């Protein structure tokens, strides 16, 4: 069983102390990596946005202000925590953890390196290689909605409730496009395991990043994934959940101290995890050229280079998200909904249809161009029928009158 090679934390195989130790080490290391990454990401984000707005940014705590997030965290940790009288206390306390757990669990299925050996066991550099990894990602990103929704509901206050209603509506809407975009990869890869997907994008020659990585083969799905992932993580320009001008602070208005910090942490952890998933699914994960002058079994080629490639790709995506954050104004709520439902989902469905047809054509040895053309024609015809059936805006206005 290949996925047992991750020495999986489900502990289904023959469990010895060393297996337990490896699992424990991997979980702890992944958690620490994620926490430190969030800390550095928040600092880097503030610095880059400051650069883009011709400011200096945080520069007091530590060299170049790198400890600013740590200082903020310590401050929030020691602040008073208040719970409103009208709050539903157990749910109010639970919500932050419901929000942060999915973000961390999602990261567990992401391969951050190749196959290495720890304590005499050959294992993958990922916490767990689930056979249903991609479904797990979808499930966890869906679970993240509960933290936001319950936080708003249990606060017993108007603005958090409005914020959480918005949040759940937005997350559910974009969940559909998000899932369909992932489907674009899954159809081509033919597997749900994230490690298998990474292996299929393995570096074989200098052109592997075009021929093997999925970003070009699923270019439209990749674009949809990036947009939907921004919306899923409540990242600007889709941050209507926390639209300060309209909702005070959104679903976390009533939260103080460390509970607020956990929401904050979860939000940025989500951004990092989503970037890591985008890298895994579309950009080849940890695959990249290894150093030719060293042997293939050299510790640098096995341990460090894949991690560095992974890191470089994640950093590139994170920079892009910060760039988007600095550049785009917040989108209007009805535009957000109509963009999600009327464009993203439909394009994603069309793409899935075409990909599936081409895939079947490959298996059945049909002419793939003809198959693609026919599927596009069918899809466009189906859309035409749907469009004709939909009430037009002027008709709707007539109806309202």
């Amino acid at each position: 069983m290949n996925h047992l090679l991750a020495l999986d934390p489900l502990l289904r195989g023959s469990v010895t102390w060393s297996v337990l130790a490896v699992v424990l080490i991997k979980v702890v290391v992944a958690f620490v990596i994620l926490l430190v990454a969030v800390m550095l990401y928040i600092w880097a984000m503030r610095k880059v946005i400051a650069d883009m707005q011709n400011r200096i940014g945080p520069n007091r705590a530590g060299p170049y202000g790198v400890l600013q997030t740590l200082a903020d965290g310590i401050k929030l940790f020691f602040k008073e925590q208040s719970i409103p009288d009208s709050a539903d206390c157990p749910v109010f306390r639970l919500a932050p953890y419901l929000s942060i757990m999915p973000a961390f669990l999602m990261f567990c299925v992401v391969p951050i390196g190749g196959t290495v050996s720890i304590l005499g066991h050959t294992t993958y550099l990922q916490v767990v290689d689930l056979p249903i990894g991609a479904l797990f990602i979808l499930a966890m990103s869906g679970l993240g909605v509960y933290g936001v929704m319950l936080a708003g509901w249990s606060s017993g206050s108007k603005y958090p409730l409005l914020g959480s209603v918005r949040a759940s509506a937005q997350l559910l809407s974009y969940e559909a496009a998000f899932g369909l975009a992932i489907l674009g990869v899954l159809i081509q890869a033919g597997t749900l395991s994230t490690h298998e997907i990474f292996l299929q994008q393995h570096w074989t020659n200098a052109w592997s990043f075009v021929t093997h990585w999925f970003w070009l083969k699923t270019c439209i799905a990749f674009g949809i994934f990036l947009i939907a992932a921004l919306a899923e993580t409540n990242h600007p320009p889709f941050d209507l959940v926390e639209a300060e001008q309209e909702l005070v602070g959104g679903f976390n208005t009533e939260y103080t101290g460390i509970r607020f910090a956990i929401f904050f942490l979860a939000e940025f952890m989500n951004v990092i995890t989503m970037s890591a998933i985008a890298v895994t699914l579309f950009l080849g994960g940890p695959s990249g050229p290894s150093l030719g002058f060293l042997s293939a079994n050299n510790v640098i080629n096995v341990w460090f280079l894949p991690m560095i490639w992974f890191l470089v790709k994640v950093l590139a995506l994170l920079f892009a998200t910060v760039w988007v954050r600095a550049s785009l104004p917040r989108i209007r709520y009805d535009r957000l909904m109509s963009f999600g439902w009327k464009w993203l989902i439909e394009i994603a469905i069309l793409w899935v249809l075409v990909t599936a047809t081409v895939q079947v054509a490959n298996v059945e040895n049909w002419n793939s161009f003809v198959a693609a053309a026919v599927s596009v024609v069918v899809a466009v015809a189906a859309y035409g029928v749907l469009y004709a059936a939909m009430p037009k805006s002027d008709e709707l206005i007539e109806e309202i009158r």
Partner: protein
Amino acid sequence: MGRLSGFLVTLRQMGRPRLTTEYPKVKHDKPERMHGRHVLNRYEDGMEKCIGCELCAGVCPARCIYVRGADNPIDDPVSPGERYGFVYEINYLRCIHCDLCVEACPTEAITETKLFEFSFANRADAIYTKDQLLVDDTGHAQRLPWELWLGGEDDDTSAWMRATSPSGSAAYEGRVNWSGELGFGVRPPEHGQSPVPPPAPATEKQDD
């Protein structure tokens, strides 16, 4: 580019030099007309200029000045003339540095230095008495322990600013001119918006 041109705008900013001054490390030169901590001036013979008329206290919008005048002792006058400022206090917890007291003063007794970096640990320190406000024998402000003097902040402080220039040169029209000040002479008026710099000695024959 159209709708995506915003991305270029933000990216272009990254290479530009920063305009921010990192204040405590880097300090700009202070403007000539800056309103800072006050001083009470004296004549060259050591007599105080303040005549205890309380006009500054009357005009102060923050009500931070307290003045009590008294008759000069005949054998040892403090100021030339009949009266002098017996008590003079400025509460810097209230002062807004609007400079109205300076404009109200008929004898140029109260003027402002360019010092603004001073802070207090208690209220008593914040209320400056006449002893603390009076300039020393060289015409410079006293340096109190809680004030951060950088040098040059108490130069050119004992003069008035005049709103218009009577010098007759078009380059000075509507420009600030200065009254003569003891120990420092007459400062040239500030250069106006005219691109041509005015001749420096044009201010010598200023009336009054």
